[in-house]
């Protein structure tokens, strides 16, 4: 069994960390279980056998305290950098998309031709997420009702959508194609079918798609599924949710 294909720029880094931990724990696992089996065979009861009387040995105990501690500290330090890059540092000059989860659908909002969110020309889609290849994408996540989780397995992306909170994450696709967006946080009876469709376009195709959407929306304004609920989903100004993740 292998991990899924790597479609984001940091997927390989996450997988390397996964494989590093798999090697380290795998080796520890084999050694420990082998010693266990060896002892069970070697020291099994036989007539006249006398167990070795000992209460332990301080020196070996210190060793087997310090060695695992060092391994864990090194793993933590290595993980820390990667985590910072993925979840703390938001890239500049990124494609911005707003995602609002609801039972059991994904609402995507693009700023439209004026480049600003929450204006009349915003592009709204339901369960259809498009973004360009080779350019960082920053999504701002929130939810109307319960917690959902934005899970792109091939991108190694996962982030919960929390009602009353806005969370920003980024990713960058390294190839064009079609993938699926899954909800990873139990959100009710339709959780299993809360699926979105992801299309990674070339830069030109992405612009073309945006233009098509804008044109379609201009011609049939109020039809979109998200539009009526959108104002209600915005919390009153007094309760403006704090934005987590990303200092940029």
């Amino acid at each position, binding site marked *: 069994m292998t991990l899924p294909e790597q479609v984001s720029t940091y997927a390989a880094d996450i997988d390397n960390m996964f494989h590093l931990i798999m090697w380290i*724990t795998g080796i520890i696992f084999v050694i420990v279980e082998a010693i266990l089996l060896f002892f069970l065979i070697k*020291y099994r009861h036989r007539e006249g056998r006398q167990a070795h009387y000992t209460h332990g040995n301080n020196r070996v105990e210190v060793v087997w305290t310090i060695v695992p501690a060092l391994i*864990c500290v090194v793993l*933590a330090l290595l993980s820390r950098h990667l985590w910072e890059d993925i979840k703390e540092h938001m890239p500049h000059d990124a494609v911005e998309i707003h995602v609002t989860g609801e039972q059991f659908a994904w609402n995507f909002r693009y700023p439209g031709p004026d480049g600003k969110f929450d204006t009349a020309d915003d592009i709204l889609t339901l369960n259809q997420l498009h973004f360009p290849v080779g350019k960082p994408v920053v999504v701002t996540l929130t939810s109307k009702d319960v917690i959902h989780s934005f899970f792109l*397995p091939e991108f190694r992306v996962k982030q919960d959508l*929390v009602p009353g909170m806005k969370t920003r994450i980024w990713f960058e696709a390294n190839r064009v194609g079609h993938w699926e967006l899954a909800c990873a946080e139990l959100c009710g009876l339709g959780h299993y079918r809360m699926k979105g469709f992801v299309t990674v376009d070339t830069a030109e195709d992405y612009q073309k798609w945006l233009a098509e959407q804008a044109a379609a929306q201009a011609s049939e304004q109020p039809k979109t599924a998200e539009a009526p609920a959108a104002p209600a989903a915005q919390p009153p100004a007094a309760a403006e949710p704090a934005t987590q993740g990303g200092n940029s």
Partner: protein
Amino acid sequence: MSTVARPLEAPHHGVHAAPTSFWRKYIFSLDHKVIGRQYLFYALFMLIIGGLLAGLVRWQLAWPGKPIGFMGKLVPEGMPGGVMLPEFYNSLFTMHATIMIFFAIMPILIGAFGNFVVPLQIGARDMAFPKLNMMSFWVAVPAAVIIIWSFFVTGGAAGGGWTSYAPLSAIAPRGQTLWLIALLFLGLSSLLTSVNFITTIINMRAPGMTFFRLPLTTWALFITAILLLLALPVLSAALIMLLFDRILGTTFFLPAGMVVSGQPWPNAGGGQVLLWQHLFWFFGHPEVYIMILPAMGITSEILPVFSRKPIFGYRAMAYSIMGIAGLGFIVWGHHMFQSGMNPILGTTFMISTMVIAVPSAIKTFNWLGTLWGGNIHFTTPMLNALSFVAMFVIGGLSGIFMASTPVDIFIHDTYFIVGHIHYVLFGGSLFGAFAGLYFWYPKMFGRMMNETWGKIHWAITFVCFNLVFFPMHFLGMRGMQRRIYDYTQYTHLKGLQPINQFMTIALFVLGAAQLILVFNFFLSMRRGKPAGPNPWHANTLEWYAASPPPHENFSRIPTVYRGPYEYSVPGHGSDYWPQTDAGGAGPAAHGHA
């Protein structure tokens, strides 16, 4: 801690008179041994229920939507025509986890073994507060009734997962309210138990039973009781807050602007969604240790007995229990790395989580050290205790993956987590419970369980356990989410059906093998070989009492002369040296520093 414990004074003799009526003797008993056995039956019954629920969950995962005829008649609302509905599936895994964690594992380890073994191991006549003890069991009974009843109310049983994340749990149908009430009952029950254990262990040790002569089972239960005392009030507070959000219109967990199914939620505003997770996991992570520490204690008890060798590093074992307990309170955020919690906070929780692996590693190495140079007898309790060690290694190591924040991004909320938790709670806690059951059964019921059937039960359980749960790591690596009714909806998960079918079949064999245990358990009560007081030739005080021990346990409170694990002492006649044996100067029986 070298002071000799206060001896049980004469006035304490006869904490309560021996009961004569059936009701006082078997139902509303004050005797810790009866209460322990009551908890045992309670836990084993709930274990079976929880296992059956798991069977239904796995059926759906192997053959999504395939009808089970008779279930259509049994639960027509959840499975019309035998076809499982998604909301019923959600109830099934929610109740499976809830029942296994709160109604099976905790009662068997703490309620059954804790109650039965602790007073015996410390040389007391009963718990410090026998009436409180009775009450803690009888408060747990309505909890079980309510949780089973909740399956039959409108909307079915709670379906928000055993973690019941708000706000889903705040807006869920009525079953969720019953879930909250049942857990509040259980919380009270555990709190009463913990106060009782702590008081008993501190105050009622026999003469000579210093803290560092306590058997490690008692040590583990002592620390577990402290964890319960500190963690449960936080859970209870959170449960009450959620209950208020549901029925009194408060908004602890309901933020402004919530819109459910297109309608603004009536009492939303001002709440914090993540507050529930912080409160829940502040309890929930220590809870994991509440379920594993007693099993570690049982393993540490059984390994020396059947290796005929002192435990390796007694003090290190006791200190590492304390270390795990202390660190257990500062790692809760590792359940929330992807929740939207500030990622910088995630890093601090990653570091504390990595550190908590260390005391667990120490324990594992000390168990190996105990086996080294031993004289190992493969009895059924020993085989189960060894399985604990072998499986806990896997559960512990797989935890490192999710401790690493970036790796957790991918595996969080996937079957990798489900695999991990089952290696800890089934591979760990439940094998520990089986080990304890086979080990203390002769003390509890006066007769031996059948060894041959015990070994067959162990072998099938061990093999099938791995066949069911190891592949879960692979499912997680392919990105299969947990708590998902029909993964075949996703293109990238469709190919996982054969492996899911294989796991389900293995689970059915695993479940069927438990019938062997059930038969062995009941038949041995009548037909088992009489055990005698000390069938395993063990050192600790429970083996000094008769099997089963009489009311008030000991005809004379024993005096303790040495540590609990003096096996194969050179120059001593036999290969064990009971704690009660005054003979000879003996070794410096304190372990080493």
